[in-house]
């Protein structure tokens, strides 16, 4: 009896393989075929399909980063729907200031009618636009009442249609300057840098 050699004990080191090869493991240690069949669904293909979500999450994160980069906290600036802005490359960022919209027929200050473009064109010479002057002056006085300790910046932005003649632009420009807004900016659509 004692002459029989004992088979070598199976060496099992639990820390030998931390990362396992992927594969079926459920109930695999039970050496019974019917258990394996039960687990594998009697040899049929399982009805549950697992989707790989890694690429989907990657896509979502990339989209979130892109949208966050292009996010503007200042919000959208309303442009009069009758005004088609000219395009330019060497521009600056928009600032918060009174908006004067000049289209083919009307002059509007923050949506309020402040004069007629046609009247200036028909007259054929530069003139001070009284309604525009009064509206801008009122805005300036209101600003000074609200913020008495700050110096008035004197900035206004002109949204001028690209086909409006220069005489109208000059009249509006001069009226704004008379009303206390010497720093006049023209709103334009930004063109990408040509790189030349």
């Amino acid at each position: 009896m004692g002459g029989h050699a004992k088979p070598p004990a199976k060496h099992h080191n639990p820390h030998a393989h931390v990362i396992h090869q992927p594969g079926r493991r459920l109930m695999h240690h039970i050496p019974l075929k019917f258990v394996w069949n039960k687990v594998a669904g009697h040899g049929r293909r399982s009805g549950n399909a697992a989707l790989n979500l890694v690429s989907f999450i990657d896509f979502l994160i990339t989209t979130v980063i892109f949208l966050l980069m292009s996010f503007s906290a200042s919000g959208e600036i309303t442009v009069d729907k009758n005004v088609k802005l000219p395009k330019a490359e060497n521009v600056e960022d928009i600032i918060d200031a009174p908006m004067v919209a000049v289209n083919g027929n009307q002059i509007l200050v923050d949506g309020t009618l402040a004069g007629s473009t046609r009247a200036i064109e028909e007259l054929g010479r530069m003139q001070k636009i009284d309604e525009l002057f009064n509206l801008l002056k009122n805005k300036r006085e209101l600003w000074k009442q609200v913020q008495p300790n700050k110096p008035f910046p004197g900035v206004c932005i002109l949204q001028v249609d690209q086909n409006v003649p220069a005489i109208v632009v000059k009249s509006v420009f001069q009226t704004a300057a008379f009303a206390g807004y010497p720093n006049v900016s023209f709103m334009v659509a930004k063109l990408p840098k040509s790189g030349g």
Partner: protein
Amino acid sequence: MGGVDVGSEGGKKKATNAEINMVPFIDLLMCTIAFLLITAVWVTNSRMNADAQVPGPPNPDKELTPQTPEKVLNLHIGESDFALVWKQGATVVSEVRVPKPPPNDSPVIRYPDLAKKLEAEWNSNGSHRDPSDKKLDQAIMHTDNRTPFKEVVAVLDALYATKRKVKLPEGDKDLPVFNMTFSVR
């Protein structure tokens, strides 16, 4: 779903494989995307500066001393060309003409040759060059009353193409070398 495999210890022990539920994470990402898409601003409008404050407000605190007038660029928009005239007071310092390209069907008007010539003119006649000098060279635009605004903007775009470094309290900034105002008769 996402999981972490830390090795199995046999059938009797509690499984050490942890499953992270990714559904709330995906929900959060979806909500963020929806919010950002709804609030996104796709139209990029900008502005171009002009100045009606010529030669500038008189300061009552400062004593007036007679100074030689600065050189000012007078930019005339003609029918077929542009005239770049540097004037010091009433004296004409130099005059250059740049031919105007013929009108085309392009919706955007550009004057790259005028921009190059303006840069060369500023390099030879510009007064304010030092980064610590915050004042800009003055340009006066002379244009016909019938000139469409898009042409005025195209000339303004060429005028503002040349830039120089200016030291500001918030840091160095590239600013256009010229500041434009309109000529008024």
